[in-house]
């Protein structure tokens, strides 16, 4: 099924996207309201919260260009050394820019 982007079509498409995204924003807490929160659930949740980030980042590092890899590596090193996010992010972006400039 296709929607024409002429006329009201664009509005319908935007509303569909908004509704789907809203389901994802609300679905997690809705489902969890039926799950008993015990120690195992807490362990699942805390392991999953770090894993979300790792799962986003890994393909970025493996399939990205060398600039992307330089950015992530630099961010990790600076973060380990100074333990402050903003300098680490800034260093990562500068690393990517320099790498792509060369």
């Amino acid at each position: 099924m296709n929607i024409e982007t002429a006329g009201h079509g664009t509005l319908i498409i935007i509303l569909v996207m908004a509704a789907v995204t809203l389901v994802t924003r609300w679905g997690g807490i809705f489902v969890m309201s039926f799950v008993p929160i015990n120690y195992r659930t807490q362990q699942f949740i805390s392991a999953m919260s770090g894993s979300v980030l790792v799962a986003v980042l890994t393909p970025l590092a493996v399939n990205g260009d060398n600039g992307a890899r330089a950015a992530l590596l630099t961010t990790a090193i600076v973060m380990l050394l100074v333990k402050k996010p903003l300098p680490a992010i800034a260093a990562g972006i500068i690393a990517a820019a320099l790498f792509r400039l060369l």
Partner: protein
Amino acid sequence: MPTVDNRSLELKWDEVLAGFKQLLPISVFVLIFAVAFGLAAAQKGLDGASILLMSTLVFAGASQFAALDLWGEQVPLVPLIVTVFAINARHLLMGATLYPWLRDLPRAKRYGVMLVASDANWAMAMQAFNAGKSGLGLLLGGGLAMWAAWALGSWLGLYFGSAIENPVSFGLDMVMGCFLLAMVVGGQKNLRMLVIWVVAASSSLLAYWYLPANSHVVVGALAGGILGALWMEKKVEH
């Protein structure tokens, strides 16, 4: 861990304001990317009102860029729904991880703060909650800062898009990646977490290569979470 005292459940406006301010630096980069989105959307033939409406109501950058890839004189409905859902499915996981700290809020507030849940403010809020501090201000205030930046930038993209024709060459595409990595590195580090991350990373990569597009975040996160539920930390006795 979720031993919640009542103070952290109240939504105080000074905390929301503090959260707003704390996420302002990252919002500047969100704004730059929104400008790039506005430009790309305009080039696909979307008018200004539609671009602003989409960014205001959807507020999920990666899925909006993906929607532009499907854009033409007609847009296929099912692929659009599947793509938007798959890319934004990580919100489901974010909501689930936030639940222990949101469950005692009144329902309207609980679902209300989730309207602006996004990668950066979620990661900051989780870090605060895990450290025993209130993250609600970060979640709501920070989310509002990023939402405003995303909407404003998308609109600006109509007029000033060409000024940042190639944000990639300046490394700007890496802002969110570097931010999220800084959150990972700044978090809890021990052998158990390290093993969980390795499992999450390898399952995400395998899913990225062999499973349908955009499934890797959910697969990797669930694999890490399930391992965490099976291999539990020893309970600290008080």
